[in-house]
């Protein structure tokens, strides 16, 4: 067999190359057709092939993390008595205060309106410049709020979300990006005031558990299923994607999804013990130096 790229005549080289290429394509085609024939007669074989053929992704080749929570009595005991136990154990209904950074712009108000729509039992309060966060936290505690959400902005665009769980914390700060309001989503549905169902995906590590529990406490315990609304927080590579849909039942077997919006993406920047304090102790904090590999995830 002559190496094609050593042939000096261009026409000859092209001809041989084309031949080789066709032969390869034919072999592939043949292989596939035989496989198809085999599998059509034997569907188990196809299932087996599909089950075995899992491509490598960053997620399924992630670096080993010892903090991933599996059945563990100690962690369970820790979570049973943590700051969220009022919600999980005693069935406290969430009551959320949404506010903004000082001097907000129009786009922040728009986003805040969407947030009010997502979470049942929320109250939007216009931020007054004379009140600092520690004052607002005290006021909210006195008024039995369970959570505070503060939207931060930069260049007139929302860029950060701070979640404060009351009364004892913790406080989490997220980077906020890729916001698409409901009206910008094509074919979006109208929302109803039903309590939505909540889906949390891939909050696996100990830190992820805390964050997942924090999001859970924002929604009421029992959703109103007749509203058919579902809010999803999907964690992939430490980015938390928010989506909201409505189930559209076609028949007894088929169900479609209609997106309600908004869409936005959160990324955890820090988690602080206790309510917000600029000088408080950070339970976890993102630093660029922690990004040692593309396969290292924290949530």
């Amino acid at each position, binding site marked *: 067999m002559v190496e094609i790229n050593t042939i000096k005549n261009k026409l000859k080289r092209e001809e041989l190359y084309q031949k080789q290429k066709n032969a390869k394509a034919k072999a592939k085609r043949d292989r596939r057709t035989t496989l198809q024939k085999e599998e059509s007669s034997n569907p188990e074989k196809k299932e087996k092939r599909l089950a075995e053929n899992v491509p490598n992704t960053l997620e399924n080749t992630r670096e080993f993390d*010892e*903090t991933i929570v599996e059945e*563990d009595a*100690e*962690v369970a*005991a*820790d979570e049973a*008595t943590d700051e969220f136990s009022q919600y999980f154990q005693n069935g406290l209904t969430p009551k959320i205060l949404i506010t903004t950074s000082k001097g907000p712009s129009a786009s922040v108000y728009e986003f805040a309106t969407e947030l009010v729509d997502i979470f049942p039992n929320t109250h939007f309060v216009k931020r007054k410049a004379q009140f600092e966060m520690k004052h607002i936290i005290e006021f909210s505690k006195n008024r039995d709020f369970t959570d505070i959400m503060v939207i931060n902005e930069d260049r007139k665009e929302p860029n950060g979300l701070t979640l404060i769980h009351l009364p004892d914390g913790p406080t989490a700060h997220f980077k906020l990006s890729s916001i698409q309001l409901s009206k910008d989503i094509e074919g979006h549905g109208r929302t109803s005031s039903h309590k939505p169902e909540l889906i949390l995906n891939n909050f696996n590590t*100990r*830190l992820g558990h805390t964050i997942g529990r924090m999001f859970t406490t924002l929604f009421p315990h029992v959703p109103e299923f007749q509203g058919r609304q579902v809010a999803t927080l999907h964690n992939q590579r430490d980015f938390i994607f928010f989506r909201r849909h409505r189930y559209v039942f076609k028949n007894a077997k088929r169900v479609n999804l209609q997106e309600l919006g908004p869409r936005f993406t959160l990324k955890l920047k820090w988690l602080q*013990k206790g309510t917000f304090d600029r*000088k*408080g*102790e*950070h*339970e*976890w*904090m993102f*630093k660029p*130096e*922690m990004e040692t590999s593309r396969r290292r995830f*924290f949530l």
Partner: protein
Amino acid sequence: MSSQRFYTGDEQGLVKVVTITEPVVVKPKRVRRNQPTPEALPNPVPTVETWGIPDREKAIQLLCWDSEKKHLAVARKNGLVQLLDPKDGTVTTEFKHTLGKEGKIDTVFVGLFASSESVITCTSTGRLVVQSIADHSKTTVLEVGKDICRMRVHPREHHIVATGGKEQELTLWDLKALIKDPAAEEETPEPATKKGKKNSKKAAPAPTPAPAKGEPEVRYKSKDILANGQIFKAKNVKNDYLDLRVPVWNTDLQFLNQYDTSRIAVGTRHHQIRVYDVKSGARRPAVDAEVGEMPVVAMANGKDGSEIIFSDTVTNVYSVDTLTGAIIGQYKGFTGVATALATFNPFENDSAAHLVTVAMDRCLRVHEMTKTRKLLHKVYLKQRMTAVVVGEYTPAEIAEDEEDGVVSSKKKRAEGGEGDDDENDDDLWESMGKLEDKKSKKRKLAKE
């Protein structure tokens, strides 16, 4: 295999005993050309033993050894102070203190020390209690001022106590003088302060307060300011460039010298590291340096008092030179605030000390205190950690050493068997590598 133990305390009230086993150091034997290189042994997994039942009310706030390292003293959130047996964690003695609340803030323990006779505790409200271990009813309660953030007892002179806090300057107390005083005060209530002071001067024996009592004290007129039992009280630094008073908020302190009480390092909430020199007679710090941007959380002594290691609220751990106040370096690898630090010498003869830390990210870490500041071990402990102390070091067993050919041959030599000499010599020659000077190596490479 040698192993090192650590005892940690966490928010669930569990004491965990972490045993880190050092991997066997195998001396690389000469490998023949065709032999496969021996695979390195995998690092042994640290073992964790847990004492206690999870209970947030019993959250551990402080841990320390008693002065003879026979018991582990534990201060808990509900006011319980216990002495544990370090072998199996059984409670040998326990005392109950009432902590209560001050406004909405819980009172916490800010200092714990145990000697063989007594346990000294201090709460954030400034209640310093000296509790006798043998006689439970024998307690002495002293008030050292409110909003105390840290109390530490000198590791050698157990009657010297240092306190500092929010608007509480660093103060050195002499317990011997303090405990004797009340009787004198009771007799004559009115001029008590003066008399008490005299008494305290007489009562205070020579060891450390001597320099403070000498000439410099008179020069700085600190005589009038020192209250009962105080040896030293720091003075706030000079006003800033706007002539405004600099706020005081000491968060942690450390005695820099094991043998005397002259040098004390203090970390503040306003991210300063200050070093006070008690002997010099000056009440202001000898070194006052701004470090980082966030409050100091915890401090630990580095080697020989020339270095101090502190952690701040944004998960940094720095090493600071106590002579200049400059940051020497940073320990990396933290994702949560390091809540407690401790240094130790892992091997008796080894000069490089190690730093052990526990953090809010639920991990215990061991760093090397060399120039590289390498992270040696990281152990996930499942709880937000609050305290750590260094336990005993178990050296490698001799039996294991004997497996090593080199050691055994050395031993034989030491025994002085003459007949083996030639054999030993051969061994020796074989164990040596072939020397080549750099130049010839380079030449060889060039030829190739």
